[in-house]
């Protein structure tokens, strides 16, 4: 028996696997039993109802996708009245993801959706498709600090700000979030990118830029998660290009407490249950009885000292 249980701060999860916001919905419940997940993370909502950006919204590369969706939202009332009750039928903790245009609205929305059934709130300060050129609160340590602070004063639920890989100073943003009282970090959201159809001369998503996600981004996303793990003392939830147990293990070895699966859910909607099974098999094969033993277990290469051959 392998013990897959992990804790993300005060939140206990049956296993470290959950969907990434926006890549999972009620429809998935028609494909597999959601009770096998570590947690359920819903698509980012805003207080108001939003349509999102014009299509085409998706382009595809050999091992990655470019999505430009722009946070369409059915609004917070729909979320409370329909979405929360739907997921309350399942045992994994429900994590809401929210976005807003101002620091105050982040606080207000956090307060509003702190209803029974919601177990933590992700602060999506990092959507690359909202503002021009992918700027977001999460690009700025100070703005991130303010958002988290506002949410922390508005709710008693754990607050998990989601980092953007487009910030050069992601470690500073992570530290600011921690200082503001963040309970965990989700690292990271999609990478701002673009592609052009050379036959039509047009951008491949109407919004010109979108978020690059999927397997090809994993080495970048792992690096950022590792940098955050090194910098902060709160739990880090790894996200980016994870589609198999081996992918998830890279993030766990780098020190992440849990992982989120995004684009791989589109490649196969049963990616997460299979990943969980394969984690068990990996642990059995390596004689590991608790998945927590893997967390942060990365080992360095032996150093080579060119000055002294005798060391070799």
């Amino acid at each position, binding site marked *: 028996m392998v013990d897959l249980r992990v804790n993300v701060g005060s939140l206990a999860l049956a296993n470290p696997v959950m969907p990434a916001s926006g890549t999972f*919905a009620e*429809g998935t419940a028609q494909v597999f*039993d959601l009770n*096998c997940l570590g947690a359920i993370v819903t698509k980012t909502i805003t207080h108001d109802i939003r349509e999102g950006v014009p299509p085409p*919204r998706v382009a595809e590369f050999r091992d990655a996708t470019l999505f430009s969706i722009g946070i369409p939202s059915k609004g917070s009332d729909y979320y409370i009245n329909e979405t929360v*009750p739907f997921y309350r039928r399942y045992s994994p903790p429900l994590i809401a993801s929210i976005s807003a245009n101002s620091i105050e609205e982040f606080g207000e929305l956090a307060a509003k959706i702190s209803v029974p059934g919601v177990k933590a709130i992700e602060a999506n300060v990092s959507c690359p498709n909202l503002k021009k050129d992918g700027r977001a609160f999460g690009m700025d340590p100070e703005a991130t600090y303010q958002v988290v602070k506002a949410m922390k004063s508005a709710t008693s639920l754990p607050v998990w700000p989601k980092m953007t890989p487009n910030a050069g100073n992601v470690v500073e943003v992570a530290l600011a979030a921690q200082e503001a009282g963040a309970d965990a970090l989700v690292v990271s959201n999609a990478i701002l990118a673009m592609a052009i159809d050379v036959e039509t001369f047009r951008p491949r998503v109407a919004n010109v830029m979108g978020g690059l996600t999927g397997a090809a981004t994993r080495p970048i996303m792992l690096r950022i998660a590792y940098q955050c793990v090194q910098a902060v003392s709160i739990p880090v939830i790894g996200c980016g290009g994870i589609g198999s147990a081996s992918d998830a293990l890279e993030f766990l070895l780098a020190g992440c407490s849990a992982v989120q699966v995004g684009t791989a*859910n589109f490649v*196969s909607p*049963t990616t997460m*249950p299979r990943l969980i099974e394969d984690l068990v098999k990996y642990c059995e094969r390596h004689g590991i009885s608790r998945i927590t033993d893997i967390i942060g277990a990365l080992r360095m290469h032996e150093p080579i000292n060119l000055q002294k051959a005798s060391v070799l």
Partner: protein
Amino acid sequence: MNMNDSPTAPTASKVIAFAPGRCDRQKAHRAQQAHHACRDETLPIAENICTVRSNDWINPEYKHLVLSAPATALTAVAGQFFHIACPPGADEAAYLRRPMSIYRVEPDDERIEFLYKVQGVGTRGLARLAPRDTLDALGPLGQGFRLPAVAPGEQAHVLLLARGVGLATMAPLAQEAIRSGARVTAILSARSASLVMSADYLRESGADVLVVTDDEQTSDVVQIERMIRRVHAAQAITFATTCGSNRLLSTLQRLTAEFGIPGEIALEQHMGCAIGACYACVRPFRKHSGSDELTYRRVCWDGPVFDLQETTSW
């Protein structure tokens, strides 16, 4: 609220069954028994591991794929589709799945069929499938055609207007409609007579088939409109359906409004998840018939079949 969004209580009984995902595809081809513990056989959507019976060219551009399929796949109805994990091609591989309308379902024979145009990386991969290969088809997905009820004693008369691969989407509707007692008239449009597909399959199903082609210069909108009026005059059309072509959409919107009958259209859009999660597949629709205000709807989940009057041209 869309029907599909309504809460579905998870069922208690759980059956371990094979439903390997695309990552395990190659292994599945050999093993067939790959599975995951959270599979629940009673759920309506599955990654159906199908076995290829045949995959033949029916003309220089289109192939006809016949599969043996597990039970979940056999519940598909006209207008629904599968999201198919295309096998890799020679030096390329599609990362995402590809949506394909169900072309024919024969539950008794445990058989489903697709008709597809070979064009890009995904369909080129599909074209390589040989008998006994396996294929992972997620589905059935989406909202199919909704044949309206007719008054007792009256016969429904369903018009199918399709061009090119649109046929694939409409063909099973003919079968369903005829089984329900309706009369079906199918107008098939194509570049040339050799590219007209499924005329025989439709005739066998009992549909009246009218063919128009660019080559014979019988396929322009004016002539098609005249043809529809003749069909309607002979026996009143009670439900009109189409797909794909912008030109045909406008004509049919106008005619169904004039005739005062409902109509539906099957639409396409590039997709990510195909289960309503990613919102990649939206198109603008009138909020309601006649409205000037538009809203985005998901082709995969709210459609792919939509009300004709709520659809906007593109």
